[in-house]
């Protein structure tokens, strides 16, 4: 199999890496680049443990070839807290008790992140729909949904803090 060169943005950094043309994105990220937060739970796009964000959308990295991220921007869980500060979702997942065995957690947080990037105040149904591709066998989902709601609440508080005059005008 031919070796290919991939140029893309990984966790906010432009990189160039070589890999085999038939390499799956999940193996490329885990094995070649050492990003082991990306989990391989089923290798057929069913469980969502390998979810990463590609150009703002969630994708299952086990059903994509590495070459498909050429020129794109990929975010894994490692890229969420660059600079040492936790993302609000990482905080609320801990706070709500949404983490048990932790194997689905990276994919689950990234699906939550992709949702909040597009829709900062989702309804419960919108959250459930956004997470429907990520299976969890421990929590029963309730606390995961709670964590996303808490994060959304914090985000809206932050926005209103930044815009005091708008809030006053509304009241």
């Amino acid at each position: 199999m031919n070796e290919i060169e991939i140029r893309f943005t990984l966790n906010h950094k432009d990189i160039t890496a070589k890999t085999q043309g038939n390499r799956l994105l999940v193996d490329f990220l885990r094995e070649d680049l050492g990003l082991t937060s990306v989990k391989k739970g089923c290798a057929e796009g069913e469980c969502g443990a390998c979810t990463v964000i590609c150009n703002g959308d969630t994708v299952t990295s086990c059903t994509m070839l590495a070459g498909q991220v050429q020129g794109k921007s990929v975010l894994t869980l490692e890229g969420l807290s660059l600079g040492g500060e936790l993302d609000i979702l990482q905080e609320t997942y801990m706070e709500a008790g949404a983490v048990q065995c932790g194997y689905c957690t990276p994919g689950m947080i990234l699906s939550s992140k992709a949702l909040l990037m597009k829709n900062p105040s989702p309804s419960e149904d919108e959250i459930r729909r956004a997470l429907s591709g990520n299976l969890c066998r421990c929590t029963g989902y309730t606390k995961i949904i709670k964590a996303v709601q808490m994060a959304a609440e914090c985000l809206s508080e932050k926005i209103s803090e930044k815009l005091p005059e708008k809030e006053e005008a509304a009241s």
Partner: protein
Amino acid sequence: MNSPVMERSDQRSDAPAKSRSEGQGRGYSVVGKDCIKKDALDKVLGKAMFSADYSMDGMLYGGVFRSTIPHGTIKSLDLNGALEMDGVAAVLTSKDIPGKNRFGIIIKDEPSLVDDKIRRIGDPIALVAAESEEIAERALAAIKVEYEVIEPVLTIEEALHEDSPKVHGTTNVHISKKLIHGDADEAFKACDVIVENTYNTPSLTHMFIEPDAGISFFENGILTILASTQNAHYDRNEVSDLLGIPRSKVRVKQAVTGGAFGGKLDISVQCHLALLTWHTRRPVKMVRSRKESTLVSSKRHPMTIHARTGATSEGKLLAMEVFMTADTGAYASYGPAVATRAMVHCSGPYVIPNVKVEALFVYSNNPMCGAFRGFGVPQVSICHEGQMNALARELGMDPIEIRRINAHRVGSQIITGQILKESVGFLDTIDEALEGAGQVMKSGRAV
């Protein structure tokens, strides 16, 4: 404010952050408080190391060649294709086991590698270790086997038929046990109403989200295995027996484990890893695919439960008779413990003074059944709750009322003879469930 009930409702409020601070100052450091799990930070950062996340210098990748038939012997096994392949470090069969080739948590009936015969689809026949996952896969594909097929035993009825092939030894009966409490035969005569039904429950797989995996290596002369397991101490004993070396020369560490639910109590990759590292003296990693994990991990026991339950016209339970049969599959695993739990719990949280229970578990050539959340209790719950509903219908009673009349309370005697002296939460649970159900109905959700 200090009552436990209030505290529970605090936690259900819409603001867990607030209830956390309200939970302080009750004299407990953890109980009654929302605590952040110690491992949560590593897990939300993606830093938690699961078995498959480890890599070592000079590491080999292990794979297992498995049977494609449920019952039979090996007529011929040709390993040459794998042995001659570049990048293959070892190809092993049962002949390469230096110690004992039988393991199992209660009964040692499962081989690490098939020696006498194949008992299920997926039984391990040979191991390979190679320089890459890809070579390991190619080596497995290059192994050729010819089987002598034995008629498989696939149902409980077939297992019990006297002419059926035997999965182990001279009988397919794995467990036959009785539990007698009072005199059920006599008590049935006094019943105003008797309901009789048969319940079938299916086999289920745990589908833990992390497929079984592990890595083995020598550390200071000690064979060390890091694995996704619920049972590190037991694994260590099995590996030490397998290799015929002292316990002190084996160490098993539990890596962060991605779900289990009982499904990681049995040996998965541990013995195979140990053999490969023992023979190659190199680190070896094995990661099961979802398919392989699902094929050979333990399952929930499928059961057929026949029950007769009798009560007075007022709904007071007097007698119950249960006959349960279960298919434990190819190996015992936790079957004996599942049988005991299912029997002890088969009358449910109800006072029944006269109970007769019989359990019959059989071996078959189906997937092995073992520990799975509740150890047989979920299966019998289907039965005892079905019987309560049937009695309520028969008597024209409210199904909740008949449960209240017969509910275990402090001071009740259960069918093992034990008196429940401490708290019994069943009646409170009924009340809270009814209240919760009422709220759900009102809000219109999940109806």
